[in-house]
C-alpha cells in the first residue's frame, strides 16, 4: 500500500520562537528524520502537522488533499487528518485494556468487527497475546508496539513518531529499533520521526533534517551532513568529530 507524499511548508510560532519548516516525506521511502537540540521545535513541528498547533502561514498537503492552507483558510481538524501519531511516552489510555486501546480508533464499526480489526492490528505487530492485558503492566517495548498498533489500526495516511525509542531501556532499545525500522518499511506511508539519537537516524536511513531554534538549518543524508556540517550541532550529531555515538 502506498499513499501520496506528505508535503509540509509552514511558518508559525512556538512561544516566542519563530517556527519554519519545510519537508517532504514519501510513502514507500525511508522516513524523514528530524533531529535538533532540546527546544529546537522538533515536537512543535509534529504538532503542527498533526493539527494541534496552528501555523501562521504555509501549507500542509497529504497526497492530493490539502490539510492546511493559510491563504485559502483550509484547516482540517485533527480528527479528520488521518495522521497517526506516536508520542514519546506512548500515551496509552490507562482505563482501557490493550484491545480497547487499539479498538479506540475504529470508532464507527460494530463492536465485533472493531475487536477483530484491533486483534489483526496487534497480530501485525506480533503482540496479539497482549490483547486482554492492562496498560500498567506492559514493558516499554510492549507498550510501544501496542501504541503503534493503535496508531496503525485505523489505517492512517501518514505516521509521525516523537522520540519513539527515548523512553526505552538501553538494553532493549536496539531490538526495538531494529523491529521498528523493519516494520515501518512494510507500511508504505509517509513517516516522520523525531529523535535526538544518532543511532536512530542511522538505522532509519532516510534524509535527516536538522532543526535549530525553530528552523531547518540543514537537510541531507547522514553522510552528507557529516561531510559538510553547517552548524556545531550538526557536526556533533552527524559525527564530524569523534566516533559516532553507540548507545543502542
Amino acid at each position, binding site marked *: 500500500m502506498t499513499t501520496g507524499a506528505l508535503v509540509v511548508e509552514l511558518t508559525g510560532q512556538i512561544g516566542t520562537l519563530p517556527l519554519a519548516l519545510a519537508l517532504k516525506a514519501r510513502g514507500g521511502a525511508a522516513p524523514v528524520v528530524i533531529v535538533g537540540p532540546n527546544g529546537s521545535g522538533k515536537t512543535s513541528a509534529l504538532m503542527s502537522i498533526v493539527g494541534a498547533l496552528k501555523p501562521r502561514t504555509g501549507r500542509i498537503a497529504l497526497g492530493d488533499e490539502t490539510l492546511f492552507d493559510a491563504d485559502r483558510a483550509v484547516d482540517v481538524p485533527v480528527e479528520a487528518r488521518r495522521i497517526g501519531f506516536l508520542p514519546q511516552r506512548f500515551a496509552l489510555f490507562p482505563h482501557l485494556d490493550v484491545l480497547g486501546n487499539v479498538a479506540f*480508533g475504529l470508532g464507527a464499526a460494530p463492536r465485533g468487527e472493531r475487536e477483530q480489526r484491533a486483534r489483526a492490528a496487534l497480530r501485525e505487530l506480533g503482540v496479539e497475546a497482549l490483547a486482554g492485558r492492562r496498560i500498567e503492566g506492559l514493558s516499554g517495548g510492549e507498550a510501544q508496539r501496542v501504541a503503534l498498533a493503535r496508531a496503525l489500526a485505523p489505517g492512517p495516511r501518514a505516521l509521525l513518531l516523537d522520540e519513539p525509542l527515548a523512553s526505552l531501556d538501553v538494553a532493549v532499545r536496539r531490538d526495538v529499533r531494529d523491529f521498528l525500522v523493519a516494520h515501518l518499511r512494510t507500511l508504505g506511508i509517509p513517516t516522520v520521526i523525531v529523535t535526538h539519537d544518532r543511532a536512530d537516524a542511522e538505522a532509519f536511513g532516510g534524509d535527516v533534517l536538522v532543526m535549530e531554534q525553530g528552523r531547518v538549518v540543514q537537510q541531507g543524508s547522514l553522510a552528507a551532513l557529516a561531510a559538510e556540517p553547517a552548524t556545531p550541532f550538526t557536526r556533533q550529531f552527524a559525527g564530524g568529530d569523534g566516533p559516532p555515538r553507540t548507545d543502542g
Partner: protein
Amino acid sequence: MTPSAPRPRAGSLAPLLWPAAVGLLAAALLLLIALPLVALFLTTSPRALLQGLGDPMVGPAIRLSLVTTTASLALVVLTGTPLAWLLARRRGRAWRFAETLVQLPVVLPPAVAGVALLLAFGRRGLLGPLLAGAGVGVPFTRAAVVLAQTFVAAPFYVQAAVSMFKRLDPDMLLVARTLGASRPRVFFRVVLPLSRGGLAGGAAMSWARALGEFGATLMFAGNLSGRTQTLPLAIYTALESDVRTAQSLSLLLLAVAFALLVTIHVGTRR
C-alpha cells in the same frame, strides 16, 4: 569530667519533654473536635431522638433539603464541569483570575454571600428590574435556596475537577483525536472515565457543603417553613422551642456527613 556538653543524666525527664508537648497539644485539638460530637450522642436517648424527629417541621425540612441540594448539585455539575475544563486547559491571566474568583466563596463569610446574592437578584438588586419584568421574584423562594447553595458549594466541585483535568496527559488527549475522535468523544470517552473518581469526590464535598448551607440561605431565602426552611434552618428554629428536635436533626446531618466522608475515603483509596 571531660569538658564536653552536659549529657542528660539517667532518669532525666528531658528526653520526654518534646514528645509529651507534641502529644498534649495534638490531643487538645482532637478533644475539642471530638467532645461536641460525642455530646450530641451522649445527651440523648433513642426515644428522645425519635420524639425529636416527630416534630411537624422535620418532614418538610428534610424534603426541602433533599430537593434543593439535588437541584444545586445538578446545577454545579452541569455548569462546573465545563468551567473546570476551560480553567484547566486555558493559559493566560484572565483564566487564572477566573480560577481565583471561583475559589472566593470558600473563604467568603456566608453572611457576605447572602448580602451579595440579595444585591444581585433581589428586588432592588442589579437584576431586580429585569427579573421583575419577567414576572420572577427570586428572594425568599426555593430558587433562592438553590442559588445560595450553588454559590457556596460550586467551588468544592470545580476545584476538584480542575485538579483532575490538569493531571491528564495532553499527549493522550491529542492521540485520541488523531485516532478520529471528535472533541466531545474525547471528553466523554477519555477525559470523563479518567476523572470519574475525583469528580465524584468533588461532587460529594460540594453536596455536603450545600446541605449544610445556613447563613446565605437565611439572608437570601429566609426561613419559611415548607418553602425555604432547609435542615440547618430547621435546627436553628427548633433550638428556640425544642432542643430535642434540634439535636435529632443535628445527629441526622452528622450521620450523613460521616457516611459521606467514609465513602469518599474508601472511594479515593481504590
